């Protein structure tokens, strides 16, 4: 779903999305996704399937068999390789589309590859692990003070830092029942959203002029 989402996002926003139109397109895509989700829930054949969907939606790494990892790995690696190859193009695009094309960067192709690479890596990852939000939004902001803001420099570092952050969060939720009065470990997606959303708000407040 995130895969088709990022593709339709580009479709909605047109070739040269400005900030506001991209945000509106994001709102529209997430509304469509929510509607499709509600449809899937109502079409669930039995209560067991309903529970399965709900658990998948909460997102987590627990109880995912290696077969699912093997299923997801090729697409994630391919998507990651595509994204890693875009460093120069994304660097150039920080000067705008005109300057990027004058530097010899194929702008339309770079945007399309970025959408395809993201769709492959994130879409398949979410299909296996469910929706674990905010890791991808938070990690680049955490890294910028150390690595600078050049996209090409963040590109290889962000997935590594994201993996570290996700595994840390996963360990925390699994240890939670030991110290908190919980009968089972909460889904990791709950923790990342509870911590990630306020963090993003703080980043947005600091970025505001």
């Amino acid at each position: 779903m995130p895969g088709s989402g990022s593709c339709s996002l580009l479709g909605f926003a047109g070739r040269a999305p400005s900030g506001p139109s991209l945000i509106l397109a994001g709102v529209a895509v997430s509304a469509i996704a929510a509607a499709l989700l509600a449809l899937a829930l109502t079409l669930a054949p039995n209560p067991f399937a309903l529970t399965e969907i709900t658990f998948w939606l909460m997102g987590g790494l627990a109880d995912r068999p290696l077969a699912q990892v093997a299923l997801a790995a090729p697409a994630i690696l391919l998507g990651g390789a595509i994204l890693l190859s875009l460093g120069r193009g994304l660097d150039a695009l920080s000067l705008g589309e005109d300057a990027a094309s004058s530097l010899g960067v194929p702008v339309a192709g770079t945007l399309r590859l970025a959408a395809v690479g993201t769709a492959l890596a994130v879409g398949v990852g979410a299909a296996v692990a469910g929706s674990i939000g905010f890791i991808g939004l938070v990690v680049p902001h955490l890294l910028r003070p150390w690595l600078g803001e050049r996209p090409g420099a963040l590109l290889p570092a962000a997935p590594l830092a994201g993996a570290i952050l996700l595994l840390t969060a996963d360990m925390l939720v699994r240890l939670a029942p030991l110290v908190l009065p919980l009968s089972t470990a909460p889904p990791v997606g709950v923790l990342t959203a509870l911590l990630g959303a306020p963090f993003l708000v703080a980043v947005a407040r600091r970025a505001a002029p």
Partner: protein
Amino acid sequence: MIGVTRLSAALGGRRVLHDVSLSAAGGELVALCGPNGAGKSTLLRALAGLLPETPPADPRRVAYLPQGARCAWALTVQEVAALGRIPHRDQAVTPVTTALRLCGIEALRMQRVDRISGGEARRAMLARIFATEPEVFLLDEPTADLDPAASHAIMRLLRATADAGRTVVVVLHALDLAVRYAHRMAVVAGGRVVADLPADQALPAAAAAFGLPYGVDPAPRLLPPAC
């Protein structure tokens, strides 16, 4: 050497260039002057090969600075200048250092572009062009945010670049800078090049394009710095 011949171009369905021909040779500094909306920027983008109607230029040979160029991320001055090496696909340090020195921002090279003044950021963008070491410089209002002294410094640098054999085409609103530093002035009005003259003879045509009277004004004004 760069140019377009009998080019017509449309932008969003509206024709903005009508049968325009313009060329600039090595060793020449050509200023494009004219009213807002006359088609100067479109003509410059045509020279850069950025219009659907024009074939793309070789990015190692032709460098283009868009109007109001900004950087979406807070790169350092040096990182911005180093983007000029993208067409060469190398990380050569010397051209970047030279470019920073030419643009007078060597001391700022580790500063983030969102923490320096507008004029300094403009020079960082210009350093990106110089780092490419192109044969042809296409610059859209490179002095827009600069104070008079910095404007003269940049124009003097561009003149020296042209005199060293490069081709420089600059969109300029400051006619006094155009007259003083350019070899030629092309006056653009209504999507046409209405005059293409040695810069010191082009003022009457430019005045006509702006609809302003032309004459000698003895009011005191700032003079360029002594050499």
